[in-house]
């Protein structure tokens, strides 16, 4: 497979890891790097990279799993909308088993006869709404800058085609504000960040300016083993030289200026708003709410939601795991009461959640 196999070449990965080892030894102190993106966390586990890196390098997993950082309040609101009569609730598959306050989830609602549909593309929700004018289709907008433009594009298409029975519940979030919060967190001392490759396709380097400004290293990195090894190498080089910038490792997909068209589409439909992140709390300006001129497509305006009293599941330490201050195996529930087969918290539910990745790949290290 073109653009994948080349980056899985053992020779290439081995060579890059040799370079990493030499550079890490030269730095002569422990270094903490954070992979922000859940897809990175998963790739690091899948390719066994954590155990191939020198002992002085610590790779910490960050809050880059949109499903995991969705607040319990938003999960409860999504469940409420999905339960309304006449509603077809369209969602990406990874939200299905995320538990709300009462342990309820979308999969159980579906089993109980509610119309919950897993879509592969927001465009599918528009198509379904068009073909089923008697249903109120609610699309769960979830994800970072990679996904938000696809939801915005679907809204624009719906408007263009005069689809009046589609609305979006936007729980979208943006990455830069979360990075700011991580940098400001004194309990977390991160020397460099592996920045998420596909978010960066949209944002370009601009989204990460605050990282070098704070004297930390940044490298926009792809998802194959050679990409990640080279991303780590670029971070170590910045740390060794004491010169910080936003490096682009993933140059085949990321342009410095990003994808302006996708950003325009996103900004046409959404505007920044405050958002609550699991683990990080409310981060001002880190959410995306639907602009007033698109209020017809806003599920929160179309439906009246009651006051829902939400509460986190007791004992689940997802919040601390997402902030990078705790490793999954330090949670008392991990691997015992909470496993991928019967997950209690979102970081275990989501395929790319940190706990799920550690359970699958990192146990016994």
């Amino acid at each position: 497979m073109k653009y994948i196999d080349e980056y899985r070449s053992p020779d290439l990965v081995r060579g890059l890891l040799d370079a990493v080892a030499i550079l890490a030894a030269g730095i002569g102190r422990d270094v903490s790097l954070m992979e922000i993106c859940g897809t990175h966390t998963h790739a690091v586990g899948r390719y066994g990279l954590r155990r191939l890196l020198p002992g002085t390098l610590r790779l910490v997993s960050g809050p880059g799993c949109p499903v995991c950082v969705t607040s319990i309040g938003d999960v409860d609101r999504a469940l409420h909308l999905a339960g309304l009569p006449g509603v077809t609730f369209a969602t990406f598959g990874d939200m299905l088993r995320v538990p709300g306050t009462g342990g309820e989830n979308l999969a159980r609602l579906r089993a109980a006869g509610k119309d919950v549909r897993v879509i592969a593309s927001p465009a599918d929700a528009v198509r379904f709404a068009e073909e089923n004018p008697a249903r109120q289709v609610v699309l769960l907008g979830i994800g970072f800058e990679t996904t938000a433009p696809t939801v915005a594009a679907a809204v624009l298409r719906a408007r263009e085609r005069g689809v009046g029975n589609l609305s979006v519940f936007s729980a979208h979030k943006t990455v830069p504000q979360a990075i700011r919060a991580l940098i400001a967190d004194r309990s977390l001392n991160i020397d460099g960040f592996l920045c998420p490759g596909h978010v960066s396709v949209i944002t370009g380097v601009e989204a990460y300016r605050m990282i070098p400004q704070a004297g930390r290293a940044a490298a926009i990195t792809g998802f194959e083993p050679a990409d990640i090894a080279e991303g780590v190498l670029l971070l170590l080089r910045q740390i060794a030289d004491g010169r910080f910038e936003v490096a682009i490792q993933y140059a085949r997909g990321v342009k410095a200026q990003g994808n302006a068209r996708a950003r325009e589409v996103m900004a046409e439909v959404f505007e920044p708003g405050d958002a609550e992140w699991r683990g990080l709390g409310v981060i001002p300006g880190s959410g995306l709410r639907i602009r007033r001129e698109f209020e017809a497509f806003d599920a929160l305006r179309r439906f009246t939601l009651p006051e829902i009293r939400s509460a986190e599941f007791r004992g689940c330490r997802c919040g601390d795991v997402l902030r990078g201050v705790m490793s999954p195996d330090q949670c008392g529930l991990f691997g015992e009461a909470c496993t991928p087969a019967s997950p209690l918290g979102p970081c275990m539910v989501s395929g790319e959640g940190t706990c799920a990745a550690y359970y699958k790949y990192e146990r016994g290290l």
Partner: protein
Amino acid sequence: MCIAFPGKILSIDPDNFAVIEISGTRREVSLDIVDEPVTVGDYVICHAGYAIQRIDEEAALEKLSFLQELIDNEIY
């Protein structure tokens, strides 16, 4: 969640949807948010049913040969 794959464009329809091939499977993706013209034969990165970027072939080849050179000559 932000998972995305490189796929080769096989055809483009008037409604701005393309059929792409990813490792032998075919999928339909929208071209609504790509920021440059793409044609049949191009590779695009696809996420959630949308192409989000044309892959820069030149950048990819240049990078691979650079890394190979780095490793062959151990110029770390």
